[in-house]
């Protein structure tokens, strides 16, 4: 009797312990990084841009380090805010650099790549919700940055941007070379927009929803008000890159 019972229990244990697992995906947002301008699509360098006062600027080499992308849920409705205020149980709202709403792995974008060709920046698995904005950080690259060019090509390590080119003055005259490098850092917090430019919040509200978005470096607008020959142009350029970037929902 005892042996029979023990043997039966042994079989039950063995059957129950047959390891297995399964996963049902939740929501996810795949992020890409591109540089592009709306009117044309260039296969690479050089890129001709317009500066202030009719200045013709040609970029011959360029790198930009995007250090982090963080997404933000749309503000709660007034009704939900009221409910939250009435909730007697406080909820900790911690935040960490490696949170489900932030990718902090730096990626260096090489302007020699064709327009519109995305770099895979990573995939977020954020809490379910509808997301309206993203904060994109232009940071100094470190040695672990994805796509960091070899130092023999350009010493990008420690710099946020490295742009080389030349300027053709509006009234004619000799080309003037420039090199803009800076370790200055800047953030741009922008709404998700459609490719047409209208606001386009990303709804990640049901299990299995997988969306994507692209961080767009609008290089055609970087020199709208910057003369690369001016002192302080490099730091101003970092700020301009952050202020002109867009995030397209797809």
């Amino acid at each position, binding site marked *: *009797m*005892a042996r029979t*019972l*023990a043997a039966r*229990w042994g079989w*039950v*244990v063995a059957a*129950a*312990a*047959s*390891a*297995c*697992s*399964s*996963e*049902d*995906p*939740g*929501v*996810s947002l795949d992020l890409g990084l591109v540089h592009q301008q709306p009117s044309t699509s260039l296969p690479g360098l050089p890129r001709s841009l317009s500066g202030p006062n009719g200045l013709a600027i040609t970029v011959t080499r360029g790198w930009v380090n995007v250090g982090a992308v963080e997404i933000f849920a749309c503000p709660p409705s007034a009704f939900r805010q009221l409910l939250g205020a009435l909730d007697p149980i406080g*909820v*900790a*709202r*911690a*935040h*960490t650099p490696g*949170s*489900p*709403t932030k990718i902090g792995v730096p990626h260096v974008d090489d302007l020699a790549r064709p327009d519109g060709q995305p770099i895979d920046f990573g995939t977020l*698995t*954020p*809490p*379910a919700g509808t997301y309206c904005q993203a904060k994109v950080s232009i940071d100094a690259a470190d040695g672990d940055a994805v796509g960091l060019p070899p130092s023999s090509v350009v010493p990008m390590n420690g710099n946020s941007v490295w742009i080389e080119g030349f300027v053709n003055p509006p009234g004619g005259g000799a080309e003037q070379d420039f090199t803009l490098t800076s370790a200055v850092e800047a953030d741009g917090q922008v709404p998700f927009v459609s490719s047409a430019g209208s606001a386009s919040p990303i709804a*990640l509200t*049901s*299990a*299995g929803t997988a969306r994507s978005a692209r961080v767009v470096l609008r290089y055609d607008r970087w020199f709208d008000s910057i003369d690369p020959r001016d002192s302080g142009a490099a730091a101003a350029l970092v700020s301009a890159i952050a202020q002109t970037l867009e995030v397209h929902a797809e």
Partner: protein
Amino acid sequence: MFSEGQYRTESSGTPQDGGSSIEEWSLSFGGSYSFTKTIALSVTVPVLFRTMNQFDLSTTRSTNLGDVEAVAKFVLWRDRDFNSRHLFSLLGGIRFPTAPTQYDAQGQPLNTDIQAGPGSWWGIFGASYYGRLVGALSLYASAMAYVPTEGRQGLKPGVSGRGTLWLQLQPWNWLSVRVGSDARLEGVWHENGEVSPDTGGFIAFFSPAILISPATDWVIQVAAKVPVVNHLTGVHTEGTYASLSLVVDL
């Protein structure tokens, strides 16, 4: 020989830091054997059925062998050889890292919260007292320490101390009622040398139970553990434990 089915829930973390909630059904099988009047050994083999829900709406399910535990009991002192009224024992044992690591479809280890064990060896040390008080009233008290080694994937559980205090009233041979408390004080866990958030702390439960003996040598126990003091670290809660167990004296 015994078997126990148990249900419990646990949640930790916030939406911002990748928190999760666990629902666990477990089935434990085991046996206990007295070699002499003073030495006994019990072995428990758990099988865990876990479902983990995360704030990104993903769900992961796992069925797996848990960590097998063997505990020896050495009766240090008893007031008399037969029908003892007071027993004081020392306890010592090992919890083995028998829970295998589970992987996702891409071959990556699943979240540590869904794994059936951390991969640690645990030393178990403790003492217990059983006393028959007045009439049909008895008391059981124990204090145990669980001391782990480092587990897999850089995971190091915290040392924990566990205490039990039960009062049992047996008005008839076939029925007992038990009330008491179980408590656990646990150090924080570490992952790759870093403190793992929302781990460790103190929790105490109110632990009622009903024991029914439908036949000689058979005992059925229906028990619960209701958390009454929750000082677990960070954002971490445990729900009520409910269990049904059967003990057969072979």
